[in-house]
């Protein structure tokens, strides 16, 4: 027996069996205990609760969701909110990051300093503190009665940013988004196929989109309603128009500003990774400074950035969960409220984790595709 323990292979099998046993045992005991506790509270397991109505509202949603909606619909609304904040926040962070990164690699000392100060301030303070700060700032704006007018068509108050709105439903907006994607896809294909003069491809796509917009605007609206509604002060609050709630704005600003500092560093690193010799080679070939930047430096820098950028995007997407601290109903907030209200702990937890796994893997997949598309061609064909 003892000599068998000395045998490396036997020992390996014993260790593996023990690890497997512990993992299976722990998981089984978690599930059994949870089952037992839940049945003791009279909660039945399974996903049947998704059809029940919630009985509580959320304060921000892209699709119609109120206290009479089902759990399934409410969870979908939360997931869409997370995606919306994520997409807008990531776009804002990328924009700020690009600017800051370029400022940090510029030869101008003043721009350098501004970029450095920005990065050091916003990277070194927790995201949640920044979220609280922007939220406090936005909710301490004047009340609707003293709202700050913005050039005659919008207002800024502690209830949010009021903007004029086109009379369009979410269905129309969805069609518009699909139209934009189709236009971009079609335009790139057409440009490559060179069936028509490539100079007319993009203006043509834009004109097509505008026509689609007008068609949707006129067909989608009830006869007699105005095409555009403007926010108007009626009593203590604004009526009409389109409101961007402070919870949403604060979260988007926080993600953009905080993420911008990190992405700025990634952009800087990407540009620093471009070998000096390649730029010099471009100059030696007689390219102008602009051409060297556009044809050599930026493409190489973007390739160097992509892996780090993918990680950062996933990380920022996960960070949107702090929205719950300032009352933005993202996926996590909807799930945790559902757990409180319905008690379907295990099922909701599985949905929560599943949702984030799907979001993160989709980002990873998109970035991988991008990475492969942009990878310098030639090496693979040789091998």
């Amino acid at each position, binding site marked *: 027996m003892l000599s068998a323990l000395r045998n490396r292979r036997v020992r390996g099998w014993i260790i*593996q069996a023990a690890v497997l046993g512990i993992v299976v045992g722990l998981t089984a005991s978690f*599930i059994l205990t949870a089952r037992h506790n839940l049945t003791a509270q009279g909660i039945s397991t399974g996903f049947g609760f998704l059809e029940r109505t919630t009985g509580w509202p959320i304060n921000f949603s892209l699709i119609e969701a109120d206290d009479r909606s089902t759990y399934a619909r409410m969870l979908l609304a939360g997931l869409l909110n997370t995606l919306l904040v994520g997409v807008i926040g990531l776009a804002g962070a990328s924009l700020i990051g690009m600017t800051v990164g370029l400022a940090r690699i510029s030869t*101008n000392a*003043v721009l350098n300093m501004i970029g450095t100060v920005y990065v050091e*301030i916003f990277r070194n303070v927790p995201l949640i503190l920044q979220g609280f700060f922007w939220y406090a700032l936005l909710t301490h704006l004047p009340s609707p009665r003293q709202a700050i007018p913005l050039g005659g068509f919008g207002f800024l108050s502690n209830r949010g940013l009021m903007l004029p709105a086109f009379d369009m439903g979410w269905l129309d907006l969805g069609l518009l988004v699909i139209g934009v994607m189709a236009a971009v896809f079609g335009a790139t294909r057409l440009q490559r196929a060179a069936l028509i003069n490539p100079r007319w491809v993009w203006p043509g796509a834009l004109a097509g989109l505008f026509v689609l917009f007008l068609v949707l605007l006129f067909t989608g609206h009830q006869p007699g309603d105005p095409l555009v509604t403007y926010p108007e002060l009626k009593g203590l609050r604004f009526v009409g128009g389109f409101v961007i709630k402070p919870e949403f704005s604060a979260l988007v600003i926080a993600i953009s500003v905080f993420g911008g500092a990190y992405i700025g560093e990634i952009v800087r690193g990407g540009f620093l990774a471009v070998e000096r010799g390649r730029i010099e080679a471009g100059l030696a070939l007689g390219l102008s400074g602009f051409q060297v930047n556009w044809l050599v430096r930026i493409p190489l820098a973007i390739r160097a950035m992509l892996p780090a950028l993918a990680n950062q995007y*996933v990380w920022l997407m996960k960070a949107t969960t702090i929205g719950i601290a300032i009352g933005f109903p993202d996926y*996590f907030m909807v799930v945790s409220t559902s757990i409180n209200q319905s008690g379907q702990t295990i099922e909701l937890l599985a949905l929560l984790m599943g949702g984030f796994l799907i979001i993160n*893997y989709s980002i990873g997949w998109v970035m991988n595709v991008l990475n492969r598309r942009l990878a310098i061609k030639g090496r693979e064909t040789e091998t």
Partner: protein
Amino acid sequence: MTATAMPPPVLERGALRWVRRRLFSNWFDGAITILFGAATLWVASMALDWALLDTVWNVPDGSGCREAEGACWAVIRARGRLILFGLYPYEEHWRSTLACLAIVVTTVLSCVPRFWGMKRLPLLWLVGFGTFMALMFGGFLGMPLVTTEKWGGLSLTVFLFAAVVVSGMPLAVALALARRSKLPVVRGVAGAVIDVTRSLPLLTILFTAAVVAPFALPGWAQGDKLVRVTLAFALFFAAYQAEIIRAGLQAIPEGQDEAAAALGLRYWTRVSRILLPQAFQNSLPATINQVVITFKETSIVTIIGFFEIMASGNAAIGRGDWSGQYVEVYVFVGLIYFVFVFGLSRYGAYLERRARRMDR
């Protein structure tokens, strides 16, 4: 084409050369310098006025702040102790201060190369963390016992940070070694734990530990909510740190381990004497980065109901009289985070530069 010889470059030295190259290399550069320079000076002077010159230090409550042009630092005078100490008993605040200092000293000491060792560094942290816990809990030498429900403010933030790093680091080493194990089951389990943990937001993991775990754990294993959350946080830290250590391990040439094995050294001797010291050295900058991120992310526990410095800052402006002074309070709390995080990350950058110099 006639070739014209360019005049030799004028050699300029010192400040003038710097100004010409970095501020006024051409007219566009000069315009940017002047425009952004002026804007920066303007913002800086505004910030200076607000933070230091037009300030109010001495009013009894928030209503006295209305006339203030700049910051009303009186809120820090009035609520500073709440922000820093939370609900910790007033007479015992010195203990909370000393406990935080113990961790600060430990952190600073672990930046000194003399303490870098597989035995010294863990020992240093155990002593530092032990001092912290002894001071915070009390219950001996005439210091009254203070239970964790009363902990709050900066000391709770520091506790979370220290506890997560102290308990997460060994777990990270274990996970990293398990993921490189030759046994497929061990490798698979470690990989699954690491990957799943890394793909979930920290908040969901902490929420599970705080709110959901009581359902799934038998009564005897539940423990304190603070302990559960700290352990869950440590798992999250370990999942990220394990990948950092694994990268450090992979950078070591295979031959070293094989040579040690050929000399007859056992697995644990090889790991603790040959592999881990080098792995930590290789991954030092990334490790410091992870530690810094962990310090910042302790602020997330405010969402699941802990009274650390972010939550106590919110409490300071939450009730009535100081609610208008949110900027001052957030700046104060932000500065505390900033000092720690900025200091550590500068140190990390210094180490990275030093390592690059030594490589050359």
